[in-house]
């Protein structure tokens, strides 16, 4: 994307080896490494936690960050506990993951289908209302999305669909940031002359979009799909308000909250009545598994993210 192209390094001309080791440079590197350690160690320790066993955690064994206590047997046991959660023989966790996939993928699909043509129209077509639509999009994009959750709940309750997945999918499909991404994409990659030329060739407005704009919108599609999927997957408040009344239709983000609430660490009374025991390793494993789809999507989208880094970065 044109936006990210002009980023050569200012200092790259001086070969690193010849630069004097100044106090400044040393201080910079040490500061950066210390901050990095503070960021990475908790994550390593947390991931290691999902491979540990609760007794050793309680006893404070396992060495540095608990790395000495990791084993597959622990994971297998923890999984049996996480997967055993729920009525009867359990299986709620898998159900939650499936629901999260349904709403996140569904929401991302709708977001792409709606945002790409709208972004194109706002970037390259002249029509009355364009500015207002763009302004509303910007405003909706910079506002925290939890503000509208209760009004959305009232709306969904009015149509009698609380506890069902489809309203969540539709609401997640409204993704103004995606529309803005598409707008910037067509602004920077599709010259207006191309639209003019296509018109002279006799294409109508819709065909110009489908035959000229869509073939060059792979980057925008990938970015909108990625950001929307991540936002949907991690969304907590919306599914909490709309879905928590129906345990089978919970997403994994609110499911994790239930697992925490059923842990003997925090709620011994509830936990006493359960067949499964969810201590810290089990909670960490469930969290870790719930993050895997994000990791996969991130790896898949990485080349698009790096290319359109600056644009993508306007909102994380």
């Amino acid at each position: 994307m044109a936006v990210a192209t002009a980023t050569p390094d200012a200092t790259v001309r001086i070969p690193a080896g010849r630069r004097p080791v100044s106090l400044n440079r040393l201080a910079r590197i040490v500061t950066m490494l210390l901050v990095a350690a503070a960021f990475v160690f908790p994550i390593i320790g947390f991931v290691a936690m999902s491979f540990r066993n609760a007794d050793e955690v309680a006893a404070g064994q396992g060495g540095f960050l608990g790395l000495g206590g990791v084993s597959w047997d622990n994971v297998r046991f923890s999984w049996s506990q996480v997967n055993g959660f729920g009525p009867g023989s359990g299986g709620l966790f898998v159900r939650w993951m499936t629901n999260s996939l349904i709403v996140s993928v569904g929401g991302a699909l709708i977001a792409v289908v709606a945002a790409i043509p709208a972004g194109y129209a706002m970037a390259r077509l002249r029509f009355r209302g364009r500015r207002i639509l763009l302004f509303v999009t910007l405003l909706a994009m910079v506002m925290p999305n939890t503000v509208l959750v209760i009004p959305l709940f009232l709306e969904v309750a009015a149509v009698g669909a609380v506890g069902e997945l489809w309203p969540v999918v539709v609401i997640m499909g409204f993704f103004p940031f995606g529309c803005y991404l598409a707008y910037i994409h067509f602004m920077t990659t599709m010259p207006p002359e191309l639209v003019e030329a296509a018109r002279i060739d006799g294409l109508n407005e819709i065909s110009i979009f489908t035959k000229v704009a869509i073939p060059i919108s792979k980057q925008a599609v990938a970015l909108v799909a990625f950001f929307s999927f991540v936002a949907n997957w991690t969304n907590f408040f919306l599914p909490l308000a709309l879905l928590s009344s129906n345990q089978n239709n919970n997403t994994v983000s609110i499911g994790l909250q239930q697992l925490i609430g059923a842990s003997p660490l925090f709620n011994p009374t509830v936990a006493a009545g359960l067949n499964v025991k969810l201590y810290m390793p089990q909670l960490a494993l469930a969290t870790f598994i719930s993050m895997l789809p994000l990791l996969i999507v991130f790896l898949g989208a990485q080349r698009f993210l790096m290319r359109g880094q600056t644009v993508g970065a306007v909102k994380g």
Partner: protein
Amino acid sequence: MSVASSARTGSATAADTAVAGPERRPSRRTSRRVEAVGAWTLCAPYVVLLLIAGVVPIGYAFATALQTPPTPLNPAVGFGGLKSFETVVTDFRFLRTFGNIASVLVIWLPVMMIGIVGLALLVHASPGRFGNVMRFVYYLPGALAGVANFVLWVYLLNPGSSPIRAFWSALGLTDLKSVVVSGHDLSFILAAMLFFQGVGTWIVIVNGGLNGIDDAVLEAAQIDGAGPWRVAWNVKLPIIRPWIGYAALMNLAYGFQLFLEPQLLDQVASNALPDQYSPSQLGYAFAFSNYNFPAAAAMSLILLAITLGIGLLIVFKSGLFSEETH
């Protein structure tokens, strides 16, 4: 920077095209109409979603806020005027929730801004692989968003599992409840959680702004004899000021939506914390504990007005979206 400037190039060329078509004047009006119809057709799905997920719920919240809540004695809803706003504003928790948000923001926002700008400048001053690796490392916690970040913090805060167990025991804290409840720790804990989860994304964003600075500007400063500190302070900082303003306002707005962290911390601390710590929690309680939907709607509208104000500031004043709005 780049986003705005590339947009600028785009609209300049759009204007050129508009001027460069006098020979088609006879059919101009029809072609304009055809173009507008095409544009609205392409925008239709998005506009429908905007209505469903934005406009209609806001309108419906207004209508709901003007009703009276049903009571066991009078189950019918009627017109209540601004009564529900009064209920919300005079609720003893109302001001307290905003005070709580303020106490978190006072700690979190300055630390966050210094962290974002400082680390982005450090990353920018580190060319090559080291800088890239560091930027990626700083981004990592941001990938653990929402509940995942929360569970990670439970692991850190709970003396029973924490890698900094020694630190907690030095403070005399032996269980999670005591860590979360002791003194005014909650603002600090929430600030730390928000910082850890948010700073990386913003480093990438501000770093993007720094990457947009013209090399010639930095070279000129170096030739003038400015050291790395002076370049950062006198050259880079002023140039990325729009990004810093954007980050500060976005994070300020984010503070007002705080929900997950205090809600779940209360859950893991055996309900030892205030049940309605943040305004969003209060709105949630109006809806799902008291079933007072008019009050819940009124609370949402109050929060909407605040964040809308911040949003307008971002769009008009940050300087990042100037081309789009003028």
